[in-house]
Structure formats: structure tokens, C-alpha cells
């Protein structure tokens, strides 16, 4: 067990080191960007690259350390038992069908195309989760490319999907998907406070910079079309409402697990927005053919450059989308029988032991 923590620690340190070096290097690039809009094209691209590389390095370092310690990489191969291999196609089918119906048919500004990926990550582990995401988008484009269910545009986002699965796997390993029913009220309130603080911090350092650097929402409102000021206020009210909703949900369900899930969803949403924005801007002019495009149009009209508008759109819709997805997966894991979930490689860590509640 100690060995496991050593390699996790070394892996995380390596990832943080790479990210820090990368971000420091980026600092000089950012200073030289487009002065007209304070554009964060370079920054967003850079963050994406640094994050992707840092995560990759962390995983590789982890595997290398394990190989050095035990002569095998059992912690990775053992995540792929037959059950996981059978679950992956079902998970991908769920991703594709929900992704197709929700984003293309309903035109609401969420995607809901990662329920399967997060489910596999939670139950089987980070590597199967990442693989499910990767395969999901690749199959969606290439193997279903000649059918009405295909999506030629999913493939460039495969790396985002992989990151979503990887994160879900880590959250699952840490037990964040566990239901914690009948939490006493003081603990519940403390949990809610901590969750709100984390969410606020995430919003302040992760989301807000993308908006204040540009011309839009939380900056100088006098020069902006009043229609978008209204939109901004609606979003702000929505965010506060979501916070209140979280507290209410916690008090009604009396399940501290909800707080964990919401925080996980928000983190996952911010990270995927950062990684997917430059891809979306570069490949598809910032649109995806779903309801989120309205937001991109709004931000662009309000004066952001395309890259900024896409990032701003992502930072609004992705946390919402991923939080909903995490709540759906959390609910699914509670509804599925323990006898079923506990048999997956990481099932016991993810949903807790039977009879512990």
C-alpha cells in the first residue's frame, strides 16, 4: 500500500512540475499577445498543451515507478478485466446516443456525451476511463462515419474525452462517488461550506480570468450592448442559484456525497473547457452544432475574439454539463446493485462496501 502512494506521489509531483515549468514558460508568451482584446488565444492553447503533457507525464511516470517497484504494471492491466471490456462498448454506446439526442436534437447548451466515460472511469479506473473516452470519439467519427449516427467532428475532441475519463477514474479511486447517506446536519453544513469555498475558488481563479481579461461580462459594462448585460446578470443569478440549490439538495438528500460529486463535476468541467476551447476554435470556428453555439455567438458579439468566446462559452457550459453528468452517474451507481458494481476492478473503492451505510 505504501508503494502505491509512493508512485502516486511521484507521478503527481512530476505532473505538477511539468505543469509549473510549462506555465512559467507561458508567462512570457502571454505578455506578447494581441493587445487589442487582451486575447488569451495563446494562453488557452498553452494551458491546454501544458495540461495535456503534464497529465501524460504523470501517468507515464506512475507506470515507470510501478514497473521499477514491482517489475510489472499490474495496476494498469488489472483495470482491464473481462467485465470492464464488456462495459466499455455499452458505455460508448450510451455516450454516443445521449450525445447525439441531447446536443443535436434538444439544442440545449449541454452535451451529456460523457456519462459512459465517467461510469467506466469510476468503476474500472483511470486508464480504462481514458481509453473509453478516446475510443468513444474515435469510433463516433471513423467507424460510424458512414451512418446517420456518425459525427465527423467528435474525433479532434478525443483527448478531452480521455482526460474526462482519467479524472473520473482518479475521483473513483479516491472514493468521491460514494453515497454518504444520513450525514448529521453540522457535518452536512460544513461539507456544503467547504464545497462552496472550493467552487468559489475554482470560479475565481479558473473561470473569472477568462471573462475579466476581455471586454465582457464582469468588466466595464458601459460599452457593452445592454442585451448581453442582461444575459450576464441571468448567468450570475443562475450561478448563485446553483449554489443555493446545492445546499438545498444536500439538506434534502442528507447525503454528503452530493457535495463531493458537484465539486468533482465542476473541476472536470473547468479542465475540459480549458482543453477543448482551442480545439473547437481551431477546427470548427468555435461551434459544435449544438445549443452551446448560442453562447459563442453572444460572447463574440459582445466583443471577444473567437478563441476567448469559445473559452468563455466552455467555462460556462462545461461545468454545468459535467456537474449534471456526475450527478447522473452518481445516481446510477446508487441504483445499480452493489453485487454488480462491486465486481469491477475499482468498484469497491468507487461505491463503498456493502453494509457500510
Amino acid at each position, binding site marked *: 500500500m505504501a508503494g502505491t502512494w509512493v508512485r502516486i506521489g511521484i507521478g503527481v509531483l512530476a505532473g505538477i512540475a511539468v505543469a509549473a515549468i510549462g506555465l512559467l514558460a507561458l508567462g512570457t508568451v502571454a505578455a506578447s499577445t494581441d493587445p487589442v482584446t487582451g486575447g488569451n488565444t495563446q494562453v488557452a492553447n498553452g494551458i491546454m498543451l501544458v495540461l495535456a503533457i503534464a497529465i501524460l507525464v504523470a501517468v507515464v511516470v506512475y507506470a515507470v515507478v510501478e514497473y521499477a517497484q514491482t517489475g510489472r504494471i499490474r495496476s494498469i492491466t488489472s483495470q482491464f478485466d473481462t467485465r470492464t471490456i*464488456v462495459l466499455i462498448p455499452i458505455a460508448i454506446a*450510451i455516450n454516443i446516443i445521449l450525445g447525439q439526442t441531447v446536443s443535436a436534437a434538444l439544442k440545449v447548451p449541454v452535451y451529456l456525451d460523457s*456519462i459512459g466515460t465517467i461510469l467506466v472511469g469510476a468503476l474500472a479506473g483511470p486508464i480504462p476511463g481514458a481509453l473509453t473516452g478516446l475510443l468513444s470519439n474515435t469510433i463516433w467519427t471513423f467507424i460510424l462515419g458512414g451512418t446517420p449516427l456518425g459525427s465527423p467532428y467528435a474525433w479532434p475532441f478525443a483527448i478531452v474525452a480521455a482526460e474526462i475519463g482519467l479524472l473520473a477514474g482518479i475521483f473513483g479511486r479516491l472514493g468521491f462517488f460514494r453515497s454518504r447517506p444520513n450525514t448529521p446536519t453540522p457535518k452536512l453544513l460544513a461539507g456544503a461550506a467547504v464545497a462552496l469555498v472550493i467552487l468559489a475558488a475554482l470560479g475565481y481563479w479558473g473561470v473569472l480570468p477568462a471573462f475579466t481579461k476581455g471586454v465582457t461580462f464582469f468588466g466595464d459594462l458601459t460599452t457593452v450592448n445592454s442585451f448581453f448585460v442582461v444575459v450576464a446578470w441571468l448567468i450570475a443569478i443562475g450561478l448563485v442559484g446553483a449554489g443555493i440549490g446545492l445546499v438545498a439538495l444536500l439538506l434534502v438528500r442528507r447525503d454528503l456525497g452530493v457535495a463531493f460529486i458537484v465539486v468533482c463535476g465542476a473541476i472536470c468541467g473547468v479542465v475540459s473547457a480549458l482543453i477543448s476551447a482551442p480545439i473547437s476554435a481551431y477546427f470548427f470556428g468555435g461551434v459544435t452544432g449544438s445549443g452551446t453555439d448560442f453562447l459563442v455567438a453572444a460572447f463574440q*458579439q459582445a466583443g471577444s475574439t473567437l478563441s476567448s468566446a469559445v473559452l468563455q462559452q466552455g467555462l460556462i457550459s462545461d461545468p454545468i454539463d459535467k456537474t449534471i453528468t456526475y450527478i447522473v452517474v452518481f445516481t446510477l451507481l446508487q441504483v445499480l446493485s452493489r453485487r454488480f458494481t462491486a465486481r469491477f476492478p475499482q468498484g469497491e473503492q468507487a461505491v463503498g462496501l456493502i453494509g457500510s451505510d
Partner: protein
Amino acid sequence: MSEADAAYLASLAPAAPSAYHRLNPLTKAVAAIVCSLGAFVLGGYVGPLVILLGGIIPSAISARLLGRLLRISILLSLPIAISIVLVSVFTRAGTTVLFAIGPFDATLEGVDFAGQVLVRLLVLSTAVGLFGLTTDPRALVFDLERRGMSPKLGFAAVATVEAVPSLIERAGVIQAAQRARGLDTEGRLIARFRGIMPIVGPVLLSSLTEVEERSLALEVRAFGRPGRRNLLWWPGDTSAERVVRWVLVVGFLGLVAARAAGLLPRIP
């Protein structure tokens, strides 16, 4: 093994109605990837159009499915194309205003940008569409397995192809049942959204609970045994195709290098 046996095994391979169908799946995959990424690296109008008219369209004609390919790519591209036109034309900042609708100015820069993105998208959707229409997923997976990919990964990929329609079928059955109980799945957005949930839940649960029995049934058939297996058939490959693949890959890397060196015109 007798000749009759060999012929029988060959007959299990999917039918290939044209020479393009008969190409090795990896060749077609490399072509699709290089064409679509190439269009993005080149940017502008000329490069992507050359790829489309000089590479993809002739291949589709030789595979005798140009009409089908265009229909499916346009069908799949339509939602995103409409978004691109609306978002780029009307909300992209620019100096040359063509006309205005309310607060939205249509700028020349916006039209130009939308045009460039649309051309690239057309290349991407036709390239992957041609691959999908001419390649049996099993042929691709067996080819990759022969080249060293894990059979388990191949299983997951091929099983998805059947899982998608069977999940839709299941959703249809459950939807019919819910509708029989008086659930509204048509009509306005909110009604539709509310109508989806009682279908999504049972579909997810019923397909997930099948995972257990499915995996036990596979384990009984030695699915968990590590190591390689001998395939009954696999798609052919020729040295000429191998050369073509390398030429495509090297050509693409050349484009990337030219882009990095600043030799290609800037992409907006």
C-alpha cells in the same frame, strides 16, 4: 488446411464491391486522417479544395458511392454548418460591413472565415465518411490485431458497433411502453426533456445489468486468457499500399513542418 477450407474462411470476409473497398483498412484510415488533418494544416480555400476534388471525390467515384457519401456528409454537417454561418458571419468582428440585421453586422471577414471553415469541414466529413462507408469495422480491427493490437481492445471497438443500434432498439421499446402508459415524448422542449428521463433511466439500467451475464458468458469461452489468437481471416495488404501510407504520412509531416516554419499562409 485444404483449399476448400481456405476458400470458406475467405468467404467470411465482408464483400468488397470495388477496388477502393478492397484496399487495406489501415491505408484507408491513414488516407482519411491525412486528408482531414491536411485540410486544417493547409487552411485557406485552395489546399482543402485540392484535397477534396483531387483525392476524396475521385476515390468516392471509384468506389461508386459519391452520391451516398455527399448525402451522408451533408446530413451530418448541416447542424454545425448552420451554426458556423450564423456565428461567424454575424458576430465575428470585422471592418467591412456587408449588411446588418438588428444589432448583428454581417462582415466580409465573417463570411470569409465561415467559408474557410466550411470547406475544411466538408473535407473532414467526406474523408471520414468515405472511410466509414468503405470499411467494415471487423476488417479494420482484425488488420490492427494482426499488426499487434490487443484483441480485447478490438473486441471493445467491434462490440460498440452492435451496441449502438441495440441500445436504440431498446430505447424504442421502452419509449413505446412509456407512451402506452401515457407519457408525452413529443411536443415542446420542456415536455420533450421531461419525456426523455423516464426512458433514459431504464435504458441505462437494463443495458448495464446485462454486462454481468455477458462477461461471464465470455469468460466461459476463455475470453480472459492472455496472449494472442489466430485469426480466421484478415484483409490483405500490398507493398504498394505500404509505400502509399508512408508517402501520405511523410507528406503530412512535411506540411506540418512547413506550417511551423511559417511557410504557409496564415489561418484566420
